[in-house]
């Protein structure tokens, strides 16, 4: 199933046979398959953003039916979603998932006019972040490292640029994205809270086209076209920020910029075989005067081969290389620090459309990891820093899964799957051994946790295993159709996560490293149940879901843990538990000139780290405390209004309970230093967070029929200039000798203009 002018495959197209009251949906590669009795049928092909196609088809034998769909322009009669089409979605037991089209995302008003995928998913129910400018996102109370972020099936380790102000995704290169918050199918694993599955466009197979935009802070350009007409295509897109070039005007010699490059080659070998080669390269660069410079970013390269064994068996083989690099140079101390994580991933996924009542998905997955916690090089002979290499760590993560989607009765569909995942921590140099395998001791007199001294250091060859883990992860979802327009769904999932982001800040920073499970760190395990009610009205849809999640082995840190360049991280880690529960309501208008949604989430997310024995105090005295991203109420409203061919308007309104904070409850002086004493962790809150953003898009009428199309996007972020608290610091004002609470706000009212073009 492809888009007419570019031959770009289409994901999520509904293929409906109204007379049989059945249908299917195209997969991530635009492929669909359905088994029906012979006969003549009416078939409707429909998806948001495209004109419906209704055809008559006579089925006498196995048939390949490829189709081209035409994009619908806004002013045409709104897409008529008939009851027949909605029937399929109502029945699909997949719940807790939000699919967003890139067109919807591009219409949302954003900070500095930069369309941002991560900021858009924050508008969905169940998704929040630790604060403005926090990097990463949090799904259903989960931590930022518990999201599996896939770009064309390659794992990304850092989803943001410039400490969270921008995401790493160039919206022009993206075709489709889906966020799974629960009911995660067995084909996904490795992270316990969510899966953000993003696909890049393949590239126009018919003609050379380009898109791009020039904005206040960054610009982007993308070129796509055929290599071999109708068969092969390429796509190259780049984006770079340049705001730092204005800093010298403010007497500031610092540099902060990012750039990324998206590339893709696709080639259709024949009707049964397709090849894709995708790549992504992104970097952030910071320099502070002459003293400090910092570079970090993701690189991915993957090769995929789609192969159709038969009309019913679709397969995809991916070979993926992924690299996250982090480098730091401190010129005033004269050393370089490099760290990263590299992996090679082999995946083989099969989709078997057995009958119209049974679809099977199965496959295998193997990832080889190399964790490079860091290498320190002195940069000059006179440097006072010694060269040091923190021990590299190696691991292999494997999985195999089988899932079945079975239509049990007319009204009841089940998606049941099982995933078996294993993790082998391989040998390394310098493995520290401790007495009783205990890297942390508790000093009962001082009531503090202390690092246990290593009693021995051993080296184990990488072809041996230090420790291995295996977990069965059952996944099950049920969908029960109450009537033609409504259904109830319920799901249960168990997920295992073997790598952990070591970070004790409220949101990830670039200094954070990933650590594999092993002798001293156990994998995180989560169990989540969810129940939901889904209903379609004429132009609206309503989804109400409630969930409950428990996590075991959530890592926590001893007080004052020094995580940077720590070769024995196990000496500062404690194992705790986490839980989250909530209610999510999503009310959407999908048709007409006014479209958008209202999302409301009521939730709680907390964790606790009890002592390992009754004498130990644990963290926060073994009490539950709110996680840094716990927001009791989270309301997001987004709307887009198409007035005519020339103008369309967008608006966002967000309201959230203030984020948790730990406030001082006293002060003292030691050695002339004023030190605060603190209350229980995260027991207070900052003020409520809210802002209203507007945008207006002008498409000049002289565009019609022209090759070069441009549009102007005017946006205002934070219209009423609310100084939302990104954080509150407590410190001494040395000028007046008094203590103060100082609120830091990052974004006041920010107008922006972006010019977007395509040709």
């Amino acid at each position, binding site marked *: 199933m492809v888009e007419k002018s570019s031959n770009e495959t289409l994901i999520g197209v509904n293929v409906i046979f109204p007379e049989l009251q059945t249908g299917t949906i195209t997969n991530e590669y635009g492929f669909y398959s359905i088994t029906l009795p012979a006969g003549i049928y009416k078939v409707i092909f429909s998806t948001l953003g495209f004109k419906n196609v209704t055809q008559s088809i006579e089925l006498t034998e196995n048939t390949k039916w490829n189709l081209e769909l035409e994009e619908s322009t806004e002013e045409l009669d709104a897409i008529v979603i008939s009851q027949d089409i909605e029937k399929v979605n109502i029945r699909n037991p997949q719940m807790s998932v939000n699919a967003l089209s890139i067109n919807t995302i591009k219409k949302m008003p954003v900070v500095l006019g930069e369309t941002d995928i991560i900021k858009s998913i924050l508008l969905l129910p169940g998704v929040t972040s630790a604060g403005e400018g926090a990097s990463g996102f949090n799904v259903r109370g989960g931590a930022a490292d518990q999201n599996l972020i896939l770009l064309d099936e390659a794992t990304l380790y850092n989803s943001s640029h410039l400490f969270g102000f921008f995401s790493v995704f160039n919206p022009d290169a993206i075709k489709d994205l889906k966020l799974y918050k629960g009911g995660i199918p067995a084909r996904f694993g490795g992270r316990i809270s969510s899966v953000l599955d993003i696909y890049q466009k393949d590239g126009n197979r018919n003609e050379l086209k380009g898109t791009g935009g020039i904005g206040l802070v960054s610009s982007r350009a993308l070129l796509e076209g055929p290599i071999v007409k109708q068969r092969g295509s390429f796509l190259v897109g780049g984006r770079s920020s340049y705001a730092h070039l204005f800093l010298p005007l403010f007497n500031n010699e610092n540099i902060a910029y990012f750039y990324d490059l998206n590339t893709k080659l696709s080639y259709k070998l024949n009707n049964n075989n397709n090849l894709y080669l995708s790549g992504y390269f992104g970097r952030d660069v910071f320099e502070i005067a002459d003293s400090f410079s910092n570079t970090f970013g993701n690189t991915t390269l993957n090769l995929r081969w789609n192969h159709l064994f038969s009309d019913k068996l679709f397969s995809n083989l991916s070979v993926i290389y992924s690299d996250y690099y982090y480098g730091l140079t401190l010129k005033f101390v004269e050393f370089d620090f490099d760290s990263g994580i590299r992996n090679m991933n082999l995946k083989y996924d099969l989709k078997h459309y057995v009958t119209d009542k049974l679809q099977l998905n199965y496959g295998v997955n193997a990832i080889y990891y190399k964790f490079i916690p860091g290498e320190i090089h002195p940069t000059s002979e006179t440097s006072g820093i010694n060269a040091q290499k923190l021990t590299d760590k190696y691991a292999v993560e494997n999985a195999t899964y089988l899932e079945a989607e079975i239509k049990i009765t007319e009204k009841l569909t089940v998606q049941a799957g099982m995933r078996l995942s294993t993790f082998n921590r391989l040998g390394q140099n310098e493995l520290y051994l401790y007495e009783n395998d205990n890297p942390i001791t508790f000093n009962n007199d001082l009531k503090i946790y*202390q690092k246990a001294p290593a009693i021995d250091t051993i080296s184990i060859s990488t072809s041996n295993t230090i420790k291995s883990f295996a977990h069965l992860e059952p996944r099950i979802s049920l969908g029960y159709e109450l009537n033609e327009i409504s259904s109830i769904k319920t799901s249960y999932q168990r997920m295992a996560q073997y790598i952990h982001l070591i970070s004790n800040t409220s949101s990830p920073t670039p200094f954070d490293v990933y650590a594999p499970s092993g002798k001293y760190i156990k994998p995180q395990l989560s169990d989540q149940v969810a129940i939901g009610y889904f209903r379609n009205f004429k132009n609206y849809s309503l989804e109400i879901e409630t969930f409950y999640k428990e996590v075991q082995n959530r890592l926590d840190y001893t007080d004052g843990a020094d995580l940077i360049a720590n070769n024995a991280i196990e000496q500062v880690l404690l194992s705790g538990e986490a839980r989250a529960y909530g209610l999510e309501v999503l009310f959407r208008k999908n048709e007409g000139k006014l479209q958008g949604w209202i999302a409301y989430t009521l939730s709680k997310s907390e964790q606790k780290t009890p002592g390992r024995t009754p004498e130990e105090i644990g963290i926060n005295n073994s009490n539950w405390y709110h996680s840094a991203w716990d927001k009791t109420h989270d309301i997001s409203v987004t709307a887009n209004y198409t007035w005519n061919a020339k103008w369309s308007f967008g608006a966002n309104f967000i309201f959230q309970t203030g984020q948790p904070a730990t406030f001082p409850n006293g002060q003292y002086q030691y050695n002339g230093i004023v030190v605060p004493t603190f209350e229980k962790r995260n027991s207070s809150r900052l003020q409520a967070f809210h802002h209203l953003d507007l945008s207006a898009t002008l498409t000049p009428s002289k565009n019609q029929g022209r090759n070069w199309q441009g549009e102007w996007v005017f946006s205002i972020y934070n219209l009423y200039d609310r100084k939302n608290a990104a954080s509150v610091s407590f410190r001494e004002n040395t000028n007046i000798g008094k203590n103060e609470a100082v609120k830091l706000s990052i974004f006041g009212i920010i107008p922006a203009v972006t010019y977007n073009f395509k040709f």
Partner: protein
Amino acid sequence: MKLVKIITIFLAISLSSCEEVIDLDLNEANPKLVIDASINLEEDGSTFAFIKLTTTAPFFNTNIPFVADATVSITDENGIQYPFTHSENGIYLGNLIPQDSIDYTLNINYKNELYTATTHLETAVPIEFIEQRNDGGFTGKDIELKAYFTDPAGVPNFYFFEGLSSKGDSFDALKDTFFDGNLIFGYYLVEDIAPGDTVHFNLYGINETNYNFLFTLLLQTESPGGPFETQPASVRGNITNQTNPENFPLGYFRISEVYRFSYTVQ
């Protein structure tokens, strides 16, 4: 680590962000005893031994209450007792010249509770010279001072570094994991420092527990509540309340060799 502070300041400078002093109602915890017991052995062999006792106060108070009615003494492992008497403002003075390799125990009796801690002398090394750069810091225009010393090789060493001047103070806790045996420096950067100002550098020898204490303490003061905040923590020192362990004191008891260097900014 200073790194986090650097990034926080950098972000504040380079964005349209703004800082605003706000009013907050904060809870008040029960007062706790704070013990600042630092016995410093000078280069010339003399010691100015004083112990300062204060209590915690509500966060926005401008003055810190001091303790005048405690009984303070230090006893060494041979049983010799050194009494300390209160002079003024919570400062207790005594006569004690610390010897190498002898354990000293601090005893404080306050409100019928006994607080104790035991430690011994930790050595330091001399500050050899100061290097001044006029193009340092984040703007590239600040005066930056580095106080150089040579770390003894092959032994784990920990230091408390101070740079004090009328324009501002800078503190750092250092461990020699990355610079063992090398010529290394303590870093001093205060915005308003100008030629003619005098900066007093002090390098104290400390042990690992003291290093952890100071590291955690400085974290509380550098960016508590900032965007890259680490979780604020109650900083536990090495002093325990023998009578009522739950009512633990704040502060630390240390005995250090100290080397000082005064420098006038060029």
